[in-house]
């Protein structure tokens, strides 16, 4: 009896308090309290929490890697065109992709120059040839890029100081970011100065390094003058070109220039602004090859697996606590409150899995990027996008698991 001695005073004090006067608490309680309950429930079973986090993390890393590879491959595929930094390009309307170009008459270059907006127009020659590794003697396909190096339309990093050297006969500049199977040109240059290599059936001299990067079409690149290009690609006719790069006078409106060039030139050329050509090339890889689909499918699989794991965890959480949920319903908690608990649990898992997933993926980008020479880069846009995907994935899992709440029938409690 002494145990409850204090009860009457307490009761009296409580009864006098107005039961529903809003004070303190705050308007966020309807969200905060279910979330706190969800967190307490998740936290109580460490093993289950860890496996749920591992599931989300797995999905997260899978999606990051798939999206990373996808955009790295597309980026690298358009690397050569992107780094040409021309304002406008002319291509043959039938050209699907730059490494398999249709040619157009060289006279289109001089025709384009007739337009006052055009400051310079350079014909570009593209061809595939082979490169004999100076260290091992193995031959490997390499992309040749020939153009008038002097005009200054094309601006690959490292090109400027090599312009004079590239004017000499039989000289080339080697892409330092080519795959290592081509041999360590940088080391050879440092050790011996310019050195000779066999390109196709010609002997050429490597005089320096530029930077482009490997792509789908080419594991490595060689840049050279127009004249030296024809020495290697002997079968190419002088009067046909693969691509024309145009630089406009400063202050010219690019879209106006594109329109005027289109009107001026015959229909055997297509006039594209620089970014348009990059997009055109990218579209080829996305649409005309299964690559885009493969990575989208991989990402989707990651999300599905992650969703199933989160759903399983939430579902079994509800199933094992069905009695408690029914009790909460019996004592007056509405369905909305319990749904918010389940959804909160899903979203907590999304955040807890995403953060380590982001860190791990950033680390893997670094490691894998170095191993594959693909430009794998974590950026805020992708991180945000993947977070939204993971968030939705967990949200859908939560919505699915929520249906189990209907089994918690408060009338069964008595």
């Amino acid at each position: 009896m002494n145990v409850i001695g204090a009860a009457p005073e307490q009761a009296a004090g409580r009864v006098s308090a107005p039961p529903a006067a809003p004070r303190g608490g705050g308007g966020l309680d309807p969200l905060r309290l279910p979330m706190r309950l969800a967190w307490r429930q998740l936290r109580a079973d460490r093993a289950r929490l860890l496996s749920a986090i591992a599931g989300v993390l797995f999905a997260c890393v899978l999606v990051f890697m798939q999206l990373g590879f996808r955009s790295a491959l597309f980026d690298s595929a358009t690397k050569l065109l992107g780094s040409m930094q021309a304002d406008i390009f002319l291509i043959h309307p039938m050209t699907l992709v730059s490494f398999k170009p249709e040619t157009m008459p060289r006279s289109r270059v001089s025709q384009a120059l007739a337009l006052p907006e055009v400051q310079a127009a350079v014909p570009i020659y593209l061809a595939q040839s082979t490169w004999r590794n100076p260290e091992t003697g193995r031959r490997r396909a390499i992309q040749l890029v020939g153009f008038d190096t002097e005009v200054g339309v094309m601006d690959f990093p490292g090109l400027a100081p090599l312009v004079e050297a590239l004017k000499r006969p039989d000289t080339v500049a080697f892409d330092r970011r080519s795959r290592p199977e081509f041999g360590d040109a940088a080391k050879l240059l440092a050790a011996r100065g310019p050195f000779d290599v066999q390109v196709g059936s010609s002997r050429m001299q490597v005089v320096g390094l530029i930077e482009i990067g490997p792509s789908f079409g080419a594991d490595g690149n060689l840049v050279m003058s127009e004249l030296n290009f024809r020495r290697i690609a002997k079968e190419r006719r002088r009067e046909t070109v693969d691509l024309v790069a145009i630089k406009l006078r400063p202050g010219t409106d690019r879209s106006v220039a594109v329109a005027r060039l289109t009107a001026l030139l015959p229909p055997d050329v297509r006039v594209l602004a620089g970014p348009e050509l990059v997009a055109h090339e990218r579209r080829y890889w996305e649409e005309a090859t299964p690559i885009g689909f493969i990575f989208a499918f991989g990402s989707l699989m990651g999300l599905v697996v992650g969703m199933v794991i989160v759903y399983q965890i939430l579902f079994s959480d509800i199933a094992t606590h069905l009695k408690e949920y029914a009790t909460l319903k019996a004592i007056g908690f509405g369905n909305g409150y319990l749904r918010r608990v389940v959804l909160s649990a899903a979203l907590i898992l999304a955040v807890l899995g995403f953060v380590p997933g982001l860190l791990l993926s950033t680390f893997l980008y670094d490691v894998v990027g170095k191993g594959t020479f693909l430009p794998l880069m974590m950026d805020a846009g992708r991180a945000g996008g993947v977070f939204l995907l993971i968030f939705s994935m967990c949200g859908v899992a939560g919505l699915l698991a929520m249906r189990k709440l209907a089994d918690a029938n408060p009338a069964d409690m008595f």
Partner: protein
Amino acid sequence: MPLDRPLEIRGLGYAYGEGALRKTVLRDIDLSVEPGEIVLLTGPSGSGKTTLLTLIGALRAMQEGSCRVLGQELMGAPEAARVALRRRIGFIFQQHNLLGFLTAQQNVAMALELQPGLREAERLSRATAMLGAVGLGDRGPSRPSELSGGQRQRVAVARALVGDPGLVLADEPTAALDRQSGGEVARLLRDLARSQGVPILMVTHDPRILDIADRIIAMEDGRILPTTRAEAAGGG
């Protein structure tokens, strides 16, 4: 609005199933509970007393008759009104049904989350005071798994009473307990209800706790037996 009777039932009937399988479990029930009264409901299993309790607790939809609980007519009441009414009733179940991942204090405080405008500190201090009143003032931080059966049921009593309910409904709260802790929980419930002036309607089979009742109602075959014993120990 002053309520004369917390519970008033007239002509209540209830049946499970449809068509040929329809089975009537409650027929023509008249029952009322006075303010502060402790009423025990006994009877063999299958007599319909638990169904009656779930109807009064607004856990089931009514079918026939009238049932006014704390001023709310339950016949035809929508789900939202029933959920709102449940917040004003203190439930005690056969099993404690505490949330295993919450401490005793958090379990009790949870029942107060239904009352708008309370600050967390108020919820916790009221929960602690209530735990003190059931003799578990020092067990607030314990989880249910760390408590004995009798202690858990006392936490459940605290949870039912912390929100100042207008009516307490209990379904064999001592069935899972041994003689001594069962008796303790029953007397604790009685004393707390008396001090708060809360009426209790309790279904029980337990002959050891009949002494807490003001009135005992026996049920059989879905009816209330006419021989109700209106007098019980300590009433008044």
